[in-house]
């Protein structure tokens, strides 16, 4: 166990940008059958490519993060998962009709702002709270 813990700590420093990644046997980002574990993905939206820079002042584009992947909880690699999600997975395994499968979802969100012109040349600054996915986890 001590050896495994040291290994985990080493991997944690090696992968600082993905602290929400499930440790242990899934550290390569994929479950044994080639499926992806719950993780944050990035989709960059460029306002320039959309041809919208005549009305969007800032930003020039934004990273739209989303959570995607499968939640699985082997007994020896569940340190990052909530107990509730583990229990839900077990119940789902035994009685699929009683509880849905645990799913990958945002666990931390932050705000983002957009500055743009309207059709009357007025300028609007809109702040959207809880828009940017910071971390993903199993629910």
């Amino acid at each position: 166990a001590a050896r495994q813990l040291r290994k985990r700590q080493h991997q944690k420093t090696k992968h600082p940008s993905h602290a929400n990644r499930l440790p242990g046997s899934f550290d390569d980002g994929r479950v044994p059958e080639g499926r992806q574990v719950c993780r944050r993905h990035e989709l960059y939206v460029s306002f320039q490519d959309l041809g919208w820079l005549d009305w969007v002042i800032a930003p020039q584009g934004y990273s739209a993060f989303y959570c995607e992947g499968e939640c699985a909880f082997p007994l020896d690699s569940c340190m990052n998962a909530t107990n509730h999600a583990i229990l839900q997975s077990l119940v789902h395994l035994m009685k699929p009709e009683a509880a849905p499968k645990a799913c990958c979802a945002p666990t931390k969100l932050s705000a983002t702002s957009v500055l743009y012109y309207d059709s009357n040349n007025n300028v609007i600054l809109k702040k959207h709270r809880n828009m940017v996915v910071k971390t993903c986890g199993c629910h």
Partner: protein
Amino acid sequence: VGEPWARAPSSRAASCRQQQPPPPPHRRLSGREKREMQREILALLGLPGRPRPRARPASPSRPGAGAARQQPPSAAPLFMLDLYRAAASQDDEGEREGELGGPWSLAWARGLPRSSAADGADTVMSFVNLVELDRDLFHPKPYWKEFRFDLTPIPAEEAVTAAEFRIYKMQSFSWHGNQTLHISIHEIVQEHRNRESELLFLDLQDFQAQAEGWLVFDISAASNHWLLNRRYNLGLRLYVETEDGQSIDPGLAGFLGRHGPRSKQPFVVTFFRASPSQSRTPR
């Protein structure tokens, strides 16, 4: 993610990607998917379609861009860009420190005037001056300057928390520098043909004649009246007086209007709370 959406990876992102397993093969978004995504972004912004600014205004963040190359950015976009930068850096700071103040509190800390009502605002909107009338030296006293702004683009369900009228004052060389000037701003409530308009006092500030810079007046009461009764938006009137009550032509006192430099033209800023977002169909 198809080519139209892709970007060159930043060094930080690139270093992260080196440690990740190779991403699944990207596919090009079809025209229909692209249009769907455009619609979704517009829906997030609460817009029925993409805005089409009338005169392709110059972008304050991209000076000299596109067709607006000849025109420098005007005052309102510059002010709003400063607010945007303050909000963006505050978002970063809030993430680092784990605490969130008012959305614009950093902007106030940077020297922009603080308004407690504006602290809880989710949206800030600036309005350009549409009409300007002057009662100057060629008219009988008192002298004044009138401005009109169209606030109808604000949705009826939005709650305005604060509104400010911002006007630039140059140094006045017509008066002694140390002379104090009283500047008052009024809402025009009703206009009459044969007598003076009915006014509602909004704000008063005192300044030295030699002072130069932006003056900010609280017009929250007027903006609320205009939103409640949109047909009765008759504008704002500005008076300048000396300490002994003598009326002064605002132009001579150094106040700039529509004919001043673009970066110093008057505008109105409103702060309001966003209404709860409508439910959207998840993709």
